[in-house]
């Protein structure tokens, strides 16, 4: 799944360089370096998907925290009758968007989906997520190296555990 000619060759090189320096310098990889590695590669961010807590998952995926921004528009229903299929979409007016991720705070695993947005792709994604119960949904947009977020509460009347 790794392509050598990615959309941001320089960015990737720099990040990979940084990650390998971290690898050399430290016997045990701390969290931050691991996420830099995950973000740099085209690899599936396995670790981030296994974390239960939203803040931990954000940290594992991006290595930093996000700040709320009104430039991130999160569209989610106020009440979801079926938690198994909740339509969620996000659009942003921010420039240089590299990725968009969705977190569902009360789910067994907070990270739901993460989308990479190469150059030329419009920073707008719609998808459908499962929600175990009434929960906050957070969308995080990575733009120009910074993280911006929007959060909305979705009331779930029937949980999504059944799929």
């Amino acid at each position, binding site marked *: *799944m790794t*392509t050598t000619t*990615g*959309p941001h060759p320089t960015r990737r090189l720099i990040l990979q360089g940084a990650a390998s320096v971290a690898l050399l310098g430290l016997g045990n990889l701390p969290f931050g370096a691991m996420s830099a590695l995950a973000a740099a590669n*085209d690899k*599936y*961010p396995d670790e981030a*998907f296994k974390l239960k807590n939203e803040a931990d998952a954000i940290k594992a995926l991006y290595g930093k925290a996000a700040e709320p921004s009104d430039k991130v528009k999160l569209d989610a229903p106020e009440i979801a009758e079926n938690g*198994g*299929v*909740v339509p969620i*979409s996000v659009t942003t007016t921010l420039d240089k968007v590299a990725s968009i991720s969705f977190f*569902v705070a009360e*789910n*067994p*695993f907070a*990270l*739901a*989906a*993460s*989308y*990479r*947005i*190469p150059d*030329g*792709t*419009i920073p*707008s*994604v*719609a*998808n*459908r*997520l*499962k*929600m175990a119960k009434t929960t906050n949904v957070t969308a995080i947009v990575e733009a120009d190296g910074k993280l911006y977020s929007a959060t909305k509460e979705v009331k779930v009347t029937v949980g*999504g*555990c*059944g*799929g």
Partner: protein
Amino acid sequence: MASSIRVRATANGDITEVQALIQHPMDTGLVKDSKGEVIPAHFIQQLKFECNGKDVFVADWGTAVSKDPYVKFSFKGAKKGDELKISWTDNKGGSDTTTAKIA
């Protein structure tokens, strides 16, 4: 076997809108069946869209994506008749690929 991926890609000027629907159980590994046995996790991990030799959209998914996932996005730089290649891989090593012509 029919493809698990259904795609509609329509070009409108410079912008191509893509909608994809994939047939996949997306089992979380947390649900029990009627006999009380846990249904093992089975979900798509990565979904990739390529156009003209370039990745235009890459999705990394966890178990919280709904069964038979749907996704919509738009990208620039393609025209009518260009081919869009869609492929996914799941946590059990399963995969599927299809191509669609941009209409």
